[in-house]
């Protein structure tokens, strides 16, 4: 089954992706219900893989449930928890379950999460993971191992869109593209202008860029300092106004801010789509798009 997300990007239609964090429970009913509430409103659902190093249901299992429920999914695959053998076999499992789109990430360090004493794996980095999956699909490379039946991956990666030391991040993004990434999703941005370095830096590339946006939780804002949310820098004045607002006003003003940003991204013609994350506020996503 071809990825609708891939077809959508190819057609040039603005893609709306909602990010879903699998629960720390053995019950996927909530996952199904949340995804059902997005049906018809989002083009694809990005299934996170133990984000912020907090253990939850495997992304492959959650993604498969969503595919069975009739959704298009992008499965996140993190290098933090698996060596190349486990990464490859998980990806093959995804292909066997009709999951074509895979977001390859290095993964937030264990220090952020609920198992800080874990052994960080990082046998591959995200560039090498993309390269390995591309080789497996093409039947080439040392890890290809000669697949007997053809299958395809639609590979993507994360890009840091920021003026904060943008050149090393652009170097990495170019390596991801050269390894086989066909789409990039940026870490959350809060204003359109934050996209400039990555958009201008990669303007000569055919890669499709989706802007990441985040509807933060009040807890994230209350305790926010630069670096407290992995890879995310919220502009100072926005943090200040949200912190000063109090919880109730924050909930409405943050939603209004993200809604306006999504609308700007949609009409800008600068990005191929948007990926909306909402920590603990996923039920609000449908109202933002």
């Amino acid at each position, binding site marked *: 089954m071809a990825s609708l997300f891939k077809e959508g990007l190819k057609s040039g239609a603005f893609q709306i992706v909602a990010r879903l964090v699998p629960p720390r429970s053995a019950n996927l009913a909530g996952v199904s219900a949340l995804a059902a509430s997005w049906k018809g409103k989002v083009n694809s659902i990005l299934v996170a893989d133990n984000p912020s190093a907090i253990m939850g249901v495997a992304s492959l299992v959650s993604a498969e449930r969503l595919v069975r429920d009739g959704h298009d999914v992008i499965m996140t695959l993190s290098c933090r928890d698996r060596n190349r053998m486990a990464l490859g076999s998980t990806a093959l499992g995804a292909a066997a379950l009709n999951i074509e789109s895979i977001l390859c990430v290095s993964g937030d360090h264990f220090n952020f999460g609920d198992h800080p004493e874990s052994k960080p794996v*990082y046998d*591959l980095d995200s560039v090498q993971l993309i390269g390995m999956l591309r080789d497996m699909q093409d039947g080439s490379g040392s890890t290809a191992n000669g697949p007997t039946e053809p299958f395809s991956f639609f590979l993507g990666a994360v890009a*840091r869109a920021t003026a904060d030391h943008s050149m*090393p991040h652009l170097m990495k993004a170019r390596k991801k593209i050269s390894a086989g990434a066909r789409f990039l999703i940026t870490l959350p941005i809060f204003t359109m202008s934050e996209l400039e370095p990555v958009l201008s830096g990669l303007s000569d590339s055919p890669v499709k860029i989706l802007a990441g946006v985040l509807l933060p939780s009040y807890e994230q804002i209350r305790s926010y300092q630069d670096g407290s949310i992995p*890879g995310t*820098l919220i502009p100072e004045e926005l943090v200040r106004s949200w912190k000063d607002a109090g919880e109730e006003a924050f909930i409405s003003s943050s939603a209004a801010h993200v809604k306006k940003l999504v609308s700007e991204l949609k009409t800008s013609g600068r990005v191929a789509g948007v990926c909306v994350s909402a920590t603990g506020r996923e039920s609000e996503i449908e109202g933002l798009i």
Partner: protein
Amino acid sequence: MIVARRKPFPEIKGMLDPYSRALVAGCGTCVAVCLAGGEKEAGVLASQLMIASSVDKKEFYASAATVERQCDREFLELFRDRVKEVDAVVSLACGAGIQFFAEMYPEVPVLPGVDTSFIGVAEDAGEWSERCRSCNQCYLGITGGICPVTMCSKGLLNGPCSGPIHGKCEVDHERNCAWIMIYERLEQQSRIGLQDAPAPPMNHGLRPHPSRLVHSAYKRRFNIG
């Protein structure tokens, strides 16, 4: 050099509980430089143990002796007479030295007096930091002399993760991101082109455990290749 830190005294004392005569064996090289297990530290530990046993009214005797290094049999041989007099040894060498000691004197329990931390450098008096993870496939030629395997918290080989904030590592906001440093160093040296192509995955086949290395000039002696 190899950097270690001495184990907490209660832990060492606890390990020695069943014994009554101990040798504290110092190592005069790496662990001496990092103030964990040299001649001075061996003497201090032996004295601490004697004082503690006297407070506890336990019949116990500890003495100290230090050799140039414990990772060479010829130096470990110098302990032979001292080992005969004790029922336990606390070695203050790195993990390699402790094991070599235990291998050479299997008749006596050899207990670790230090925790071996890393291969590193002296930053300042009393301060050391890690620099090498002995991956056996050095990348420093293409990374501006900054090791991504060691200096990047994730050991990434192709550039920064998305985590650094204001140039600092997402894991430790006090430490510079290794990949931002690598980028800036290579750019300063007009060698950033070295990073155009993705680096292939590390070959873990080159770092089997336990590793062994025979110098090419000695291969015939050991009947290798």
